[in-house]
């Protein structure tokens, strides 16, 4: 009964979503405010309806309704309740429902804003949101139904939403297959929702951009309305990527955080265009330029969001992430093509209206450097996109599949990332409108000198690797140049306002959140680059089988195998095999580590959990190799020393802080929000 109810509400949501889109367009055609208001209310109704449907699914998941195929596939009796709830997005059908729920929430939130000054956008924003939501609901209702059940028909089990024949009876398996163990990690529980939040948030700026193209209101109003949406979208997407990296580092057992897997790249591509967009819109706001380019970027970001979901969900590219296979691929491709062609058509129609109001005056101006930054981001996007789709192209043309792996991406994107670091250092020092080599040189020479001295010190004390030295030089340049900006701003405020240093710094940052949030992000990127350089250029590894009391040596570390134990935990339905090793560095005892292998009986799958010792200098990362026999007599270990990798995580935390700092509503926005809420409640009361 619950399954039918959940499905019924979902069908109703689908119908109402279509209604809201159709009525919004009809309202514009007939110039009827009441029709548009009806579309808005219908749109608002989708959120509670999809919430009810989602709650029904959660009820089925938590209460072990294994007759529902989705529940059977992603839960088991031994899973704790919180994991059963998060299993909502642990499988294909549930995750698409989750996507739709988030989209309904966001579009509802946006339709609740104060539309007085932008009422012409409203029907088109509703239409774009409705088309996107309707597409996902269509996929769920007709192809990826999370409420579909098992039926016993003449001794065979068949899957169907409704009774296939009158004699059929519901079939309920005794236990479910359980969530993929790799997805039970805390990082993986939060990673998909963060990515989806990022993906879905980008629908809003795209909807406004399309509304601007349709209505012809091509000034920067749509950018100003969606500025914070874009920042929050970027925050969620970035957070999702970072969590995915941490998850890979903790559970995938390859000693790294990023494997250039197609599905990782699928989430990375909208991040690239989103980052380019964040920089590029500043040029439009400050200088009235690049209106066409900003439209291109937001259209690309939206297309890549759908394309990324398609890659993840359709199973078209099988990889470690592709736990799903389904016949939805062609629909996704059709939808990506339709939205892309329609968007490009609208853009071409308004191309002349989107001409720049001003022109570049200097190749060293900030806008020119931002444009170069955009070129580099798009360059990385091209490398990634082509690397992901080339195996398909090869298969189609020659019939032979190829792998495009990390060496290709690392070689192709390395120089582009280096270029971005360089721009990150110099662009904030150049002025809007006009900069010369002299003014720029004057602003940066101290930072260049300090970075150069630091690089020489590193040459004599740490490494002679030229790539590493170039990388460290660029990182130092970003850190010195950005810190100098903080110092310069604080000192001038100190003098002007007669404040002490810390008050001046705090006031400076609070009153220019966007700028200083951006600088914090630049610093965090430089810190992350230290971690990436460390693991990419200096990682060491060894593997060997040792008897109890014997040691494996790697760099300055000695890892001595002590003992091994294996035991079952029936309540978790898991077998744990845990080794105990003593760790020494240069002969000094540092402590014990416990690498282990967890075997999940329900999913019949193992998970390798490394023993890790993390310091600012390096990580010692020990794996109990799961394909070799283990016993108390001898065991095989794979050991990595990952220099500087912790800077990646430190940088990631600072990065998140920087985005939140930049995106946090200031007093003015809060007042505006209050006013808009007030206005909406007044409108509702008047209605």
């Amino acid at each position: 009964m619950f399954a039918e109810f959940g499905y019924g509400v979902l069908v109703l949501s689908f119908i109402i979503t279509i209604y809201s889109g159709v009525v919004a367009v009809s309202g514009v055609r007939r110039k009827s405010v009441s029709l548009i208001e009806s579309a808005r209310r219908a749109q608002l109704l989708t959120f509670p309806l999809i919430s009810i449907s989602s709650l029904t699914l959660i009820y089925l998941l938590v209460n072990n309704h294994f007759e529902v195929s989705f529940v059977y596939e992603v839960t088991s009796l031994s899973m704790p309740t919180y994991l059963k709830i998060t299993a909502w997005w642990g499988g294909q059908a549930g995750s698409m429902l989750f996507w739709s729920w988030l989209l309904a929430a966001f579009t509802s939130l946006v339709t609740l804003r104060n539309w007085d000054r932008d009422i012409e956008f409203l029907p088109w924003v509703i239409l774009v949101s409705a088309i996107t939501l309707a597409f996902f609901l269509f996929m769920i209702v007709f192809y990826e139904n999370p409420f579909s059940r098992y039926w016993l028909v003449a001794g065979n089990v068949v899957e169907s939403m409704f009774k296939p024949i009158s004699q059929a009876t519901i079939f309920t398996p005794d236990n479910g297959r359980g969530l993929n163990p790799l997805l039970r990690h805390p990082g993986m529980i939060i990673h998909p929702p963060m990515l989806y939040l990022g993906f879905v948030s980008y629908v809003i700026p795209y909807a406004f951009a399309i509304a601007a193209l349709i209505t012809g209101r091509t000034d920067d109003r749509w950018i100003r309305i969606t500025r914070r949406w874009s920042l929050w979208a970027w925050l969620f997407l970035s957070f999702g990527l970072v969590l995915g990296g941490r998850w890979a580092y903790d559970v995938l057992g390859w000693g790294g955080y990023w494997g250039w897997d197609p599905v990782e790249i699928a989430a990375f591509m909208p991040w690239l265009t989103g980052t380019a967009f964040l920089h590029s819109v500043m040029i439009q706001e400050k200088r009235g330029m690049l209106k066409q380019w900003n439209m291109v970027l937001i259209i690309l970001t939206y297309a890549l969001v759908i394309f990324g979901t398609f890659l993840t969900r359709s199973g078209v590219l099988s990889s470690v992430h592709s736990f799903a296979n389904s016949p939805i691929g062609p629909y996704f491709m059709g939808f990506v093509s339709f939205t892309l062609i329609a968007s490009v058509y609208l853009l071409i129609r308004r191309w002349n209206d989107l001409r720049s109001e001003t022109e570049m005056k200097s190749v060293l101006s900030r806008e020119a450097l931002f444009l170069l930054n955009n070129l580099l981001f798009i360059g990385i996007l091209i490398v990634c996109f082509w690397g992901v789709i080339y195996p398909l192209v090869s298969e189609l043309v020659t019939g032979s599949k190829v792998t495009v792996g990390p060496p290709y991406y690392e070689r192709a994107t390395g120089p582009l990332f280096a270029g971005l670091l360089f721009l990150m250092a110099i662009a904030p020092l150049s002025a809007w409108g006009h900069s010369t080599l002299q003014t720029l040189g004057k602003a940066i020479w101290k930072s260049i000198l300090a970075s150069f001295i630091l690089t020489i010190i590193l040459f004599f004390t740490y490494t002679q690797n030229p790539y590493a030295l170039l990388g460290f030089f660029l990182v130092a340049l970003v850190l010195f140049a950005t810190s100098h900006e903080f110092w310069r701003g604080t000192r001038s405020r100190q003098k002007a306002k007669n404040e002490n240093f810390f008050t001046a710094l705090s006031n400076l940052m609070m009153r220019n959140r966007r700028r200083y949030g951006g600088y914090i992000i630049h610093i965090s990127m430089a810190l992350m680059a230290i971690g990436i350089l460390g693991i990419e250029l200096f990682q060491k590894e060894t593997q060997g089988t040792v008897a109890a009391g014997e040691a494996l040596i790697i760099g300055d570390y000695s890892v001595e195998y002590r003992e091994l134990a294996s035991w079952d935990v029936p309540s978790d339905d898991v077998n744990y095999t845990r080794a105990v090793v003593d760790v020494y560095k240069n002969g000094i005892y540092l402590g014990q580590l416990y690498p282990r292998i967890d075997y999940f009986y329900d999913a019949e799958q193992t998970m390798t959990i490394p023993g890790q010792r993390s310091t600012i200098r390096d990580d010692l990362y020990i794996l109990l190799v799961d394909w070799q026999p283990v016993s108390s007599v001898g065991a095989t270990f794979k050991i990595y020393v990952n220099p500087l990798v912790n800077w990646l995580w430190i940088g990631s935390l600072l990065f998140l802080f920087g985005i939140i700092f930049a995106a946090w509503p200031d007093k003015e926005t809060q007042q505006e929000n209050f006013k808009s809420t007030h206005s909406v409640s007044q409108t509702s009361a008047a209605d």
Partner: protein
Amino acid sequence: MMKQYILRFTFYTLLFSIVLATLSTQFAYAQDNIPSDDEVNEVAKGLYCPVCENTPLDVCPTEACKQWRDVIRTQLAEGKTKEEIEQYFVNYYGDRVLAEPPRTGLNWLVYILPPVIIVLGAVLLFKKFQVWTKPKVTETASNQERGDGSTSDKYISQLEEELKKRN
């Protein structure tokens, strides 16, 4: 008789010693010739599992990959080079086992297309810069107004304030 016995003893002792020495040398050679896990992984990390795609052979936990690592070990013990072993896997499983497409035929597109597009983009941008930065006789009023970011900001914030008051 005694002399014959001593000679025979010496002969067999020598023969035994030679056989023992040969065997021990062979044994020691065989012991030294078993490639270490690190040597196997060095080759395996450049190859990709044909079953679970996008997973390098040195970290893939499947039974098939375990067997393929054993093949690498055997071939290394036979004295084959990394390239020869890679070729062996390509012959059996196709180009997909390599970390990158071989630089032949259509595969050149992987390596050429992105740099060509990026360079074209850079040339286009450079040309656009040249047009933009060419000295112009007159400037539009809007140009002058937008010229200074702070002026523009002040103007916009004033406008926003007025609009808010109106709302």
